[in-house]
């Protein structure tokens, strides 16, 4: 199965910035999950992940020079795709991970 829109993707990754600082490394830990095609992760990374298969690994370099204008730095990311599945209707409607409700800090100024 390939990563495409409306799939739930579990990945492990190591991410470094242009200074070589490690922003996160869970290669030996538990994967993180996101809903593909919803713009929940960096759009440039989402574009690089599209089409990968379960079990595949990829070294990704993200930079403005590559046309990714959403970035404020350059990033090296090693990604391992652990699992891919189709999202449920509920996940598509409500999102995969916890959301701060739309009425968060609403008109009454109360969170």
């Amino acid at each position: 199965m390939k990563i495409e829109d409306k799939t739930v993707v579990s990945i492990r990754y190591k991410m470094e910035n242009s200074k070589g600082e490690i922003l996160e490394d869970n290669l030996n830990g538990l994967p993180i999950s996101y809903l593909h095609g919803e713009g929940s992760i960096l759009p440039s990374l989402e574009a690089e992940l599209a089409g990968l298969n379960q079990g595949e690994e990829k070294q990704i370099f993200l930079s403005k020079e590559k046309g990714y204008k959403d970035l404020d730095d350059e990033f090296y990311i090693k990604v391992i795709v652990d699992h891919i599945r189709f999202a449920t209707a509920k996940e598509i409607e409500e999102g995969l991970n916890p959301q701060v409700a739309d009425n968060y800090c609403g008109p009454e100024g109360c969170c």
Partner: protein
Amino acid sequence: MKLYLIGGFLGSGKTTAILNASAELIRNGIKVGVITNDQGAALVDTRFLKNANIPVMEVTDGCFCCNYHKLDELMAMLKEKHHAEVIFAESVGSCTDMIATVVKPLQKFNKDIETVITVFVDANVLPTMLQGAPLFVDSVSYVYKKQIEEADVLVVNKMDSITEAELEKMKLLVERKYPNKMALFQNSLDELSIKKWMTALADFKIKSRDSLVIDYDIYGAAEAELAWLDLEIELVTGTHHAFEQGLALIKDLHEAINKEKLAVGHLKFFIDDGIRQEKISFTAGTQSFLSGNRNTFSTKVDILINARVQSAPEHLESLVLNRIQKAEKNNGYKVVQKRLSSFKPGYPKPVHRIPD
């Protein structure tokens, strides 16, 4: 009297745990009361607990921090009327800053109450929230981590849904991110798990607590810069292509906002003709892709619009309504406005806030 404050996002299993813990304490002859908290008027949790014959009271219209006096009043009532020795107070999902706005004021004004904070997290979600921040575009993980920071006891819940190997990795993750935090790995449906949690709370030695470092000006201002527009419309057409026309209108509205170069926090649409539903979201620099070629033939479609855009609310409202009016004229369909609200959110206004 003990107050067990329970925090954690929606779906982390707070209510079920409170229900089972209340039953456990009642079995041991301890008198219990529960206070629920939600933004909405209809409190599903309250009904759930009342059905179990546990005295329940509720704080509605905002979190405990903004309704401190109400919380205080309900605690006194549970103590007097029901002789409660232990009160569970379940806060609204996104509530943070409980130490400064609830715990410290209680210590100051209500000295006979001992408070312990438990924060619940779902074991299936925790790895993403703790390790995904560099990848995600929204800031939900910030609020999530702030909640965990405040916990005296962190309950990683729903352990029954993960494997032994995952449990070991989960323990390492929590230890790495929160080396000094008391963490319980719990299945709230399991009596033994609940007993362990209750023992941990009863034995918890209150040490000094640090209020969260939250800059309310920055925090509030970031939200307040955005105008909020919530609009529900019905598009009625004679062409049997209401869904496609609705999609075109959504694109049109997005273009209109882009043309004015207004910064978009998020722009979400939900379109539904009774057969086909689609959620379309645009955030800064990205958009979800419209999917599916499944054609439906309908004469009307409902569209929900949630826009968070950097603009004056009046300007955003007239921009959207004018564009809809223009589309009506050009395309010969009719748009009925069902619900509209536009405003700028206010700053959080806790009753008390005691920083360190």
